[in-house]
């Protein structure tokens, strides 16, 4: 006898504990199994690309903070690089090193939240995320020391940084660098070999390498699928070509690999920061840039490896004080392209963790 079943539609989101913001998955379920998914975005659409067209180049920096609000420093850096490319602004060496240090700290902070939220989705009763927020707090403290805020840093400027680092920054960073590896080991002890974590996330939500490339995935999602592609190595910007670091990759492209890639990236980021602090030169932290930048007519595209992937800024200038067009290549949005086929066939519980393993930030998806 076969049971007659009837699929039913469940809206996961927009208000749901695990949608990392306001996101809606319109799922069709057959019992617990997902038959069809339609991702629905736009609940956090603020029209940043349009707003930017009516602001001065400098006034857009605070807007970029609000794209990927877990990695504001990276966003600042990407945007400033695009404007510097467009207007031909030189960046002093000290500023480049400091930018690298900040971007890598930001990557650690963002991955901590990404991994923590992933385990929250796994149902780990807040424990991993609380531990990880504890360590992120130390990074946020360092950022607060630099720029006075804890989330929307607005710290980088065209041709450098807004201010030089205070003298108490480097000792505090030193302490953090000494402590952090121990804590990463502790997370691994807590989570890496846990049988439930393995059973839940290994071979779940597999994204094959060919599909990952075809959907233009980037960041940990692409590297988790085993593609060794990192903008820091492939297209080195700033002073990344002077540091030694590895690109961690996964093998299977499952949720577990994406988690492992993030943890290994934290270790590599610590390595980069160690080297950057050792090589940190003196000199000016900012070059002379006029109050209102007027880049020549033209266009420029600069991209960086942010915590979520290949974050690009495309600017078109018409020689006025505001950009003619400001486009963000948002890795979070593009990484979601294969969500549907990754989810179909899995159960509701898996859908949540697959979605969590992609690690998106709605501020960037919807802009």
């Amino acid at each position: 006898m076969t049971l007659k079943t009837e699929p039913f539609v469940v809206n996961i989101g927009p208000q749901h504990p695990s949608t990392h913001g306001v996101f809606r998955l319109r799922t069709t379920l057959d019992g617990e199994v997902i038959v069809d998914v339609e991702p629905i975005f736009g609940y956090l659409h603020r029209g940043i690309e349009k707003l930017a067209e009516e602001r001065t180049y400098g006034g857009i920096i605070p807007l970029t903070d609000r794209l990927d609000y877990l990695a504001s420093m990276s966003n600042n850096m990407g945007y400033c690089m695009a404007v510097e490319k467009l207007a031909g602004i030189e960046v002093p060496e000290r500023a480049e090193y400091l930018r690298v240090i900040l971007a890598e700290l930001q990557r650690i902070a963002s991955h901590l939240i990404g991994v923590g939220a992933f385990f929250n989705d796994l149902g780990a009763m807040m424990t991993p995320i609380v531990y990880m927020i504890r360590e992120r707090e130390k990074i946020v403290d360092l950022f607060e020391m630099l720029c006075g805020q804890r989330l929307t840093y607005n710290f980088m400027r065209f041709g450098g940084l807004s201010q030089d680092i205070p003298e108490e920054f480097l000792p505090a960073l030193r302490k953090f660098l000494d402590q952090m590896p121990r804590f990463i080991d502790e997370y691994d002890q807590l989570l890496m070999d846990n049988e439930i974590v393995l059973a839940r996330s290994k071979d779940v939500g597999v994204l094959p390498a060919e599909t990952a490339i075809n959907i233009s995935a980037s960041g940990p999602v692409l590297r988790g699928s085993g593609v060794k592609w990192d903008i820091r190595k492939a297209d080195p910007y700033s002073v990344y070509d002077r540091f030694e670091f590895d690109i961690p990759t996964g093998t299977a492209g499952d949720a577990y690999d994406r988690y492992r890639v993030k943890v290994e990236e934290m270790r590599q980021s610590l390595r980069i920061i160690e080297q950057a602090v050792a090589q940190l030169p003196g000199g000016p932290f900012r070059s002379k840039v006029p109050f209102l930048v007027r880049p020549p007519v033209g266009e420029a595209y600069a991209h960086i490896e942010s915590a979520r992937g290949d974050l690009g800024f495309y600017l078109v200038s018409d020689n006025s004080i505001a950009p003619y067009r400001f486009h963000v290549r948002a890795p979070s949005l593009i990484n979601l392209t294969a969500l549907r086929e990754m989810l179909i066939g899995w159960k509701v519980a898996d859908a949540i963790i697959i979605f969590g393993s992609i690690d998106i930030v709605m501020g960037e998806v919807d802009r």
Partner: protein
Amino acid sequence: MNIVYHGIAVPDMKQLPPDWPGGFFWHWLVFTVIIFTFVFTLVMAFTWVERRGLGRMQSRLGPNRAGPFGILQPVADAIKVLLKEDIVPSRSDRIVHWLAPVVAFFPALLIFAVVPFQNGALLADLDIGILYVVAISSVSTVGIFMAGWGSSNKFSLLGAMRNVAAVVSYEMPLVLAVIGVVLIAGSLSMNQIVLAQDIPLILLQPLGFLIVFIAGCAEINRSPFDLMEADSEIVAGFHTEYSGMKFAMFYLVEYAEALALSAIIATLFLGGWRGPVLPPWLWLVIKVFAVFFLMVWTRTTLPRIRIDQLMALAWKFLFPLALINLAITGLQVVAWPDALPWTMIIVNFAIAAVLIVLWSRLFKVGWGRVEV
């Protein structure tokens, strides 16, 4: 007249005064009041212990505002939740929605009728005590399914269906593991099981303890088996649509069930009220808290498992192990009734370890996808 087992003299319960402390109705009244007080106080203590313990394990403090060390937090929570507006979804099945918390609540309370607080001090010394526990504890599921159905919410329904599946599956290994204890103690009566434990039965039945703990956690939906209210997946599961007083009832059920499981495990495996120096009831409370701490600890550490993995754990791991455990226990009781307890302890621990390691071969990853 004493029953002798494993060299332990067990007094025959029939000689104890049957109606302490007086006539039947006095006995009934006193113990009803005691049970209500015990359950409500310990449920409050449990919520406090759970939140503080969880907090401290997560580098936080936990609630610490109401009263010293936040001890009055459960009271404050109770007042808040009782004063809240009761919201009933417009398309719900009102009667079912209203009845569900009541149906879920009373079985949890009824279990305590057979939990002995000290020798002979229990509401009803049933000869079939443990059978009664097993029978009555599953009735809560009906209430939970009523809640899931009656709220007319898809998340609630999913949660309720998960719960029914879990309870039906886990009843099997739970009962089989409990029978091992019954075999050793030679009685189904809770009081007699306690009296039979000159050494706590956890030492003689390590595998049985593990199975009862896991299966019990799954039945009462404690983490890592809290699928029915998996907050990251189905929001709050069956009580998504409940608020105010009715939600408080479910909250109470959750902790009363945890208390009941802790009390049963303490009685069956940890020697119940028995212990030196301290008064017996205090020993019971201490043991109950010890078991509950274990639950809080696993809840802090472990992520949630998936519904099909939950089923697989019950049928592929716990059920065969419980059967084997039962067979071995039966063999031991029949073949070597007078063997030295310490040799039996070592043998039983070794058997448990070997079985668990053998069954770990069944662990595999990446299954569960369905072609659609």
